[in-house]
């Protein structure tokens, strides 16, 4: 995924070549307009390109870039909406407060745990589901339709379903592991939160992986099979290498998505028994506690954490960004 702000030399050269090629194809037009048609056409194209992208770019920047900068500014202030007259600039004090706070680190640990476990399990299950959706001999439509339901369903709805399923008396799962209320203990609560997350997002992982599966040439699989490769060998030696880019994209998207976990925790435990994620903690400080300074500090810290994760992914794997491939522009 190379996110380049400026076109590279090769880009410019390729553009020039393309334009030259196009104009060579319409020599009459070129002759009529004289010396400058190339740059004029190019300019019009640029202008249209900018014009078409401007609204989307403006909205995205106005709703993300500006607030993020603003939240850095807020994070440097003591700003509690319950005591607005005590608002003042205090430098990095909020950061010291948050980073020495045990609740923050507990929430951070919970978030990291949920992220690592769910993404790992989803990768395995998602690969299985992708194989079933892609290769099943019967009922392909039914399987795909069923798999899309967890993807499409409102997370809050699914979370309520899981919550009632584990509620003693009401739920069909409550007595699965003997008497007790699983959602009132930390370990079982976390397990249920992860179960709910995995149920909801495995299909998305599977769809991304299925896109990669579709790229595996059928001939190659047949050839490997003729040469005596077992199903497992075909999977690891033929499919996985071809699918690598798709796997990396799926992992990146799901990791960063898992890190935002909020809905399920809010409904299942509301963060009780130290099951808060960083998102949950930020929400509690902001909306329940009305502490904008601390809330913004956490916002900035989460942003930095996610940026680091994304950066590491990109540096390590250099995945190809969707839509950024230049070779098929025209």
């Amino acid at each position, binding site marked *: 995924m190379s996110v*380049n*702000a*400026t*076109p590279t030399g090769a880009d410019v050269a390729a553009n020039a070549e393309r334009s030259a090629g196009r104009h060579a194809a319409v020599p009459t037009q070129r002759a009529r307009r004289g010396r400058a048609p190339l740059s004029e056409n190019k300019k019009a194209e*640029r202008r*249209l*390109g*900018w014009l*078409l*992208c401007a*609204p*989307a*770019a403006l*909205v*995205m920047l106005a*709703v*993300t870039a500006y*607030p993020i900068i603003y*939240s850095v500014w807020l994070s440097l202030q003591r700003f509690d909406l319950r005591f607005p007259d005590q608002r003042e600039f205090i430098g990095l004090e909020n950061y010291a407060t948050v980073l020495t706070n045990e609740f923050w680190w507990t929430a951070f640990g919970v978030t990291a745990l949920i992220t690592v476990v769910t993404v790992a399990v989803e990768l395995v299950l998602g690969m299985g589901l992708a194989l*079933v959706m892609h290769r*099943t*001999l*019967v009922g392909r439509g039914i399987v795909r339709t*069923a798999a*899309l*339901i967890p993807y*499409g*369903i*409102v997370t809050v*709805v699914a979370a*309520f*379903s*899981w919550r*009632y*399923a584990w509620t003693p*008396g*009401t739920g*069909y799962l409550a007595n699965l592991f003997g008497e007790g209320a699983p959602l009132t203990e930390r370990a079982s609560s976390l397990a249920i939160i992860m179960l709910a997350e995995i149920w909801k997002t495995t299909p*998305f992982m599977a*769809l991304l992986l299925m*896109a990669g599966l579709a790229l595996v040439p059928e001939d190659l699989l047949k050839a490997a099979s003729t040469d005596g490769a077992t199903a497992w060998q075909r999977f690891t030696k033929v499919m996985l290498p071809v699918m690598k*880019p798709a796997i990396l994209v799926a992992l990146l*998207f799901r990791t960063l998505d898992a*890190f935002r976990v*909020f*809905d399920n925790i*809010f409904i299942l435990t509301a963060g009780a028994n130290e099951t808060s994620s960083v998102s949950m903690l930020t*929400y509690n400080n*902001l909306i329940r506690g009305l502490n*904008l300074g601390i809330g913004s500090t*956490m*916002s900035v810290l*989460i*942003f930095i954490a996610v940026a680091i994760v994304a950066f590491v992914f990109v540096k390590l794997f250099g995945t*190809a960004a*969707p*839509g*950024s491939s230049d070779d098929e*522009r*025209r």
Partner: protein
Amino acid sequence: MATETTTRAKLRWGLLDVIVVVFALIPVLWIASLSFKTPATLTDGKFIPREWTLENYRTIFDTDQFVRALVNSIGIALIATAVAVVLGAMAAYAISRLDFPGKRLLVGVSLLIAMFPQVSLVSPLFEIERQLGLFDTWPGLILPYITFALPLAIYTLSAFFKQIPWDLEKAAKMDGATQGQAFRRVIAPLAAPGLFTTAILVFIFCWNDFLFAISLTSTERSRTVPAALSFFTGASQFEDPTGAICAAAVVITVPIILFVLFFQRRIVSGLTSGAVKG
């Protein structure tokens, strides 16, 4: 012998299919089952209701709380979807068709936003919207929804746009149409299926949101159903809201089920086409 192996293989795949379907459907069936239970049997722990009732549905449609939230949900999601698809289509057209500096930057920025931790925006947006008077209004939710739906819209649409036979556009231009006219008259109708698919995906995204809905609203004025659900108290303070919550949950699940049933193929192709290579 060949037929025997295929029958065996079919059986094996069929078994896997059943596992997937059961795994996917159980939580949905469970909440539907709860919504049809009478108050007396609600806590019997049975998966299938012993006594069926529509009382829970009657209750929620009688309360202003739910109906208002449903109107908010539908209105906000539809408007956000329409705007995001239009803006996304313009940008995606430019990205897939035109050469201009800054294109890669735009693709990069939208990728970053797709991965952006939404909670990081909640604190600043909360304060900004309070100052602008957007807090607890429809536009206050529509704006962040558009923002986070745009990357999805741009990717899916650029992928679709790349499959369109662009020679037709050239032909239109030869006949004297400008680039803008070629876009509106020739390409837009061809792109309609892609636009429709994208609209479904974006709608599902907006319909699903909980974090913004619960942080940037405070009253029934703009609270959407997912947020309202977490405030449900039942008809009176002492009544258990479980049945009502389940009924409301089923109501907002119905559109999703319909989309999935009717447009499974489109949704799958939309999600997979934008994913790996544009």
